[in-house]
């Protein structure tokens, strides 16, 4: 019979297709409520920080001091900076995320109540609250 002539061919084709289907199927990696991948990383810290004004220029004097033990970020902004509209820019450890999210300008004008953000590790199990302490350059 003709079918028997191509039996091995059909069998090989079947194996290839099955292999391709398995390889291409979506891996069942876990994602969080933001659709971000949950990994096994446990680190949660801020690498660097900056503040931009509405012209997208930095207002920071010098380099902000990020203390990953005390979980603080201390920085000084230029004299005359409008503290009511500043855009914080965090650099985080791989796979970490920030809460609350930075979606626009933030009001830093209440210097007695510094703003806080929580850094959440890649495995979403470790949460560290960072406090951003802003001071304004004075004459």
């Amino acid at each position, binding site marked *: 019979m003709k079918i028997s002539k191509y039996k091995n061919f059909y069998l090989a084709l079947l194996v290839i297709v099955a292999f391709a289907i398995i390889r291409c199927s979506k891996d069942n990696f876990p994602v969080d409520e933001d659709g971000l991948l949950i990994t096994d990383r446990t680190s949660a810290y801020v690498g660097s920080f900056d503040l931009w004004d*509405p012209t997208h220029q930095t207002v920071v004097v010098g380099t902000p001091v990020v203390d990953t033990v005390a979980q603080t970020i201390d920085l000084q902004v*230029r*004299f*005359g900076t*409008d503290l*009511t509209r500043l855009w914080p820019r965090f650099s985080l450890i791989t796979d970490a995320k920030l809460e609350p999210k930075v979606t626009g300008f933030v009001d830093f004008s209440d210097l007695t109540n510094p703003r806080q953000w929580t850094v959440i590790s890649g495995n979403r199990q470790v949460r560290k609250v960072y406090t951003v302490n802003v001071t304004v*350059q*004075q*004459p």
Partner: protein
Amino acid sequence: MIRKLLYKTTFLLCVVTLVVGCKEEEYAVPVPKSGLQNDCIKKSVGPGLAGIDMEFMYAMAIQQSEGKLISAQVEASIPGAPETYLEHRSFHTDAIGDDIGIPVATPSVTDGAVTKVTFDVDTNAATLRYYYRPTPDAADKEVSFTFSATSSNGQTVTYKMGPYKIRRMEVAPNLAVSNGNKFYISIEDMAVYDDTEATARPDKIDVLYLFRTITGITFGHSFVAPAADVMYRPGITLPNGINRNTKIQKAWNVRDIHLGANAGTGNNSYVYLDDEDFKTLDLSAAPNYAINMLAQSGIWVETADGKYRGYIYVNSINANGSAVIGIKRYRL
């Protein structure tokens, strides 16, 4: 057998196509159209506004055997300012791209909305430039133009351009401000004043230009509302009545060509601010000062009475405490 024949035929066809396709066609000098011809382009770009010329290039030609050019004119739907004129020189560019003007007509005469030149040399082709300067009355209106030319054989041709919307914006470029002298800026008057002049019109002073060198901070060249906290206007006592609280917000990378931003140099980007930019500008959360301004930066402003929004561009700054600025404003 058939397959071989098919291959051979295809190959033959390809060769024939190649030979025919590559055959050189002999050049023939284009035959110009008969009769008087004309064409026009708008040379200037950006929105039209009062005081800023709109530039057009009007070309006209007739075959030498058919006649010569007699006159050319432009009729605007709204009369322009006295500075409106039609060039009496025909321009061409030389080998290095410079504009070379050859006088071909008497200087233009404007009567109302019509600007006209009469050719005083025998020429059968010319490209004249037309500069239309809108008046403040044209703001918010549309203007269009009818270019026309006549030739000695009695023909007349016309070419319509537009309509173009004349914007409500106004500009006052190249205003010199200096610390302690001409440092009062009026958006309402589009002018800068010294102490004496400002004292005479305290209700029209919207912004102060200051230059300070203060230990511990960078103050530099700054723009401050008269009502700003005294810490942002150190060392100055304002005359009575100068107390407007203007909204001020810094801007960067907004180099407006109408305000003299030097387009064409460097890698910077240049723009034309338009009515829409001011209409949609939201300064409700803006402060009333801008400290440490740099050359090519600017500030968005809104006057305390809500009558005007504007943009002050810093063309240049000098270390001795002076600057050159330009104002563009929009009446709300």
